[in-house]
């Protein structure tokens, strides 16, 4: 059972309190009607499915209820960082460097 740091609560807590919410930084287009079928399918379904550092979302379901973002290594399941929704995507190279 992995442990997750909720950036809103400031606590590291067991996975059971959280719900995975898919890849991060996929924005719903502001004007969906102007999207082509291909673009809409990409928004709905296409994911990077990275093996390695993965930008993803979690929700502190049984805690504060907030959605937040995370970078997690999908090979080891270890988190590099979690950060609040709306914050910019952290620089991966810097993250990996800090992790060493």
């Amino acid at each position, binding site marked *: *059972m992995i442990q997750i740091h909720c950036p809103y609560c400031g606590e590291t807590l067991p996975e059971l309190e959280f719900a995975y919410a898919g890849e991060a930084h996929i924005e719903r287009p502001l004007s969906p009607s102007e999207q082509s079928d291909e673009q809409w399918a990409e928004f709905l379904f296409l994911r990077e499915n990275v093996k390695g550092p993965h930008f993803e979302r979690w929700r502190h379901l049984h805690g504060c209820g907030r959605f937040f973002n995370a970078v997690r290594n999908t090979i080891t399941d*270890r988190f590099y960082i979690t950060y609040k929704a709306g914050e910019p995507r952290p620089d991966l190279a810097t993250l990996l460097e800090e992790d060493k």
Partner: protein
Amino acid sequence: MSKYRLRGRGRVDSSKPVVFTFDGKPYTGLKGDTVASALLAHGVHLMGRSFKYHRPRGAIAAGSEEPNALIGTRRGPGRFEPNTRATVQEIWEGLETTSQNKFPSLKWDVGAVNDAAYMMFSAGFYYKTFMWPRSFWDKVYEPFIRAAAGLGVSPTEEDPDTYASRYSYCDLLIVGAGPAGIAAAREAAGKGLSVILVDENPEMGGTLLSEPQSKINGKAAWNWLEDELAALQAAGVKLMTRTTAIGYYHENLIALVEKLTDHLPTLPEDTPRERMWRVRAKQVVLAQGALEKPMVFHGNDRPGVMLAGSAQTFLNRYGVKVGNTPAVVTSHDSAWYAAFDLQDAGAFVQAIIDTRAQVRQDLQDEARARGIPVKLSHTVTATGGRLRVNNVRVNPVSGGTNVGAGQWIKCDALLMSGGWTPSLHLFSHTKGSLTWDDDLTTFLPKDTPEDCVITGASRGLWGVEAALRDGAARVGEALAKLGIGSSASEYSVEDDRTGSGVMMRELPTDRSPGKAKAFVDFQNDVTAKDLRLAVREGMRSIEHVKRYTTNGMATDQGKMSNINGLNIAADALGKKQPQVGLTTFRPPYTPTTFGAFAGYHRGEHFEVVRKTQIDAWAEEHGAVYEPVGQWRRARYFPKAGETMDQAVTRECAATRASVGIFDASTLGKIEVVGPDAAEFINRMYTNPFLKLAPGKCRYGLLLGDDGFIRDDGVIARVEEDRFHVTTTTGGAARVLNMMEDYLQTEWPDLNVWLTSTTEQWSTVALNGPNAAKLLAPFVEGIELTEEAFPHMSCVNCTVAGYPARLWRVSFTGEIGFEVNVPAPYGRDLWEKLWEAGQQYDITPYGTETMHVLRAEKGYIIVGQDTDGTVTPADAGMDWAVGKKKADFVGMRGLARPDLVAPNRKQLVGLLTEDNSWLEEGAQIVFDPKQPIPMKMVGHVTSSYNQGTTGRPIALALVEGGHSKMGETVYIPMPDRTIAAKITGTVFFDPENSRLKI
């Protein structure tokens, strides 16, 4: 006193005899004995039969790694378990045990004919035959194979025991209480840390329990042990015995299983049988020791052939001589000490046979001093005896492979040691990497991503002193990470038994190696020949060899067989061991009861049952329930002797005739509040909500962004900035999650709060022509008239003295009200309405009647009439989609090519031509005469014959159904084909005339 017991020796209590039975025969052991040690004390070696050849087998080991001596254990009704290791099960007065995998008896087993056909049953033989004739696999071969396989028999009764589960958090968890683990605990103790030390055995001490001769820092080993454990306890270290660390999970989560009652003669009240601990430790020390390797030679599985270290354990810990005239075969120094201990205890060791040409002179001198014959550069090529070894064939070896003439030596036990393998199971669970050590010819631990250190024999160290020093030193790394400085204590040990050895594959033999029965995996009957055959057939990865031969897949999970198997496979391939690979160790470390994993989640606690405030009333009034999501809901309220159909027919009629009362509290409820609440709802739901006036309700349809229906419900605008949203019973959590997702991450600019209020409200629904009349006297603050409170209104008022949100809505087509009161008042409100309703013959109804009544009106149930592939247009609900809206969730999805394609499946009504009832789920075709496979054009989603229209009605999804009104479709059933006419979905009161007060 039993024949092989040495009075006063070992850690058993000779003043406390314990009687148990094995295969119905009573045996007397001593308190502290295992089943195996007690049987060995009586000279009983035969304890089981092997898996494939049904060969007679005895205990080969003295601990949890035992592959052979598996027994059934019973404690009265319901308390039976198969495959218990006799070397682990402690005896208690009255324990019943049985041998396994034999018929008719352990001594005479007809399955042993397999052994005679040994050459046929080589590795993978079943892949090569049993294919003809084709039908025989299911009917003949497989049943035969299945009956022969398996070990013990399954329990057949429900388990009366309970199992507990707990979480624990500590600074340091130490797995294994041998010298290394205890030394580690000692360094950590008294430093203000929370420390847990666990061991799978009933007693702590590990090797020390089998090696009482050593002196640690001047104290006799057992005295030192006692003092140390007392000191640890005094320093607040939590000591847990009979506790197995079964798995190492992410981020230092260790699962421990503590056995609490399997060793007790009487079961204490209120004590669980086992307790699963999930321990989150900041640091972990793994000190699991090492496991002795068997030697691989023809006949190495005969009862009486066992590991030398285990024989030493039986002697020193249990006071049992495993034989009076044992012989020893080894390639490691450690077995020499076993021979010495046995000789000193009164046995007559017949020979020490060592495959090595050179052995330490002091060992040879000691053997000679004791009069034990020593044969260096010798091999063992066979053993004799039917149910117990009675002699061993010994041959000289020169040049490594030249085997000279054999000589039979009589013996009543044969002790073997092929050296020791570090126990790396938990380390492997961490995805830790291993490195091959050529000198020790074994894998050693390297790196792990987890916060743990590994110490002692687990990393290839040998001897008590080395283990103590290493434990004390290595724990320092863990302590340093906890911010605690330490300097490792010093240890000196006298009479320490250090030693070394060489790795052997199969022992050299003068027999045809192709015919030797030299076992590697004892339980699964995998021989060296099988492993070599697998390689010959192209199995090059150790995983292939393992899977082809089943080596390492027995209940010891390869503890006895993996390394021998790897050495032999590597040799056959002409490769080094690491190039062939090591199969992964997988949790659990030892087989673990399902009960321990399930814990409290059994029976009614398997999953929480959610009940409304009114549930108890329903139960008192004979409700029959159905589970919906986690809720249990009253399905119908049968009167005496009524079937479900009769009850539902009555409930439907009564509601339409006068008034019915229904518990709608399970509907999901979400409070949406804030200046932008209307905008938010408007974006989430398909319907327009901006102009909905406070005090009004509107039906809402929720889609996914793919355009398909996800949920629906009535939404009330309670105040300008406050909405009370209802969802389906099963969909509440999903809908709230979806709303939060959009609100928090797509539209954070909207000023809205969402709160789940499902449990905050009790919701009582009244439906029927007399609903208003019944309710009105209870309501303060609003007149229940058509003018003051029309259909689809809501108001905050007082009902029966309680603050209420009163809605005028209808899911039945009758005059309807839903009274929401704070949850605790629900039952009282219900009872007041119930009492006052008697004058109107009020009838309680359940979900089934609710379904019928709504179907008569053509109202859909999401999840029944839709299935995740249905659009609003498909459901005939285009009216619910705001045409002027710029966007809502699902709007773009609805425009995708297939969602606007012609001929989609559309929701229609069906009336059967012969008035028969259709089965829900039945498939629909246009052409009933076509052959199978038929072209199906839809299915029946809802179907009822208990309603008030006087005939069965159905809803169905049919291809292009909306343009096929009046046409006939066919429903082919197994026995006949039913014709039905396509109609609209409203079967009752299409003018909605009954909604008016």
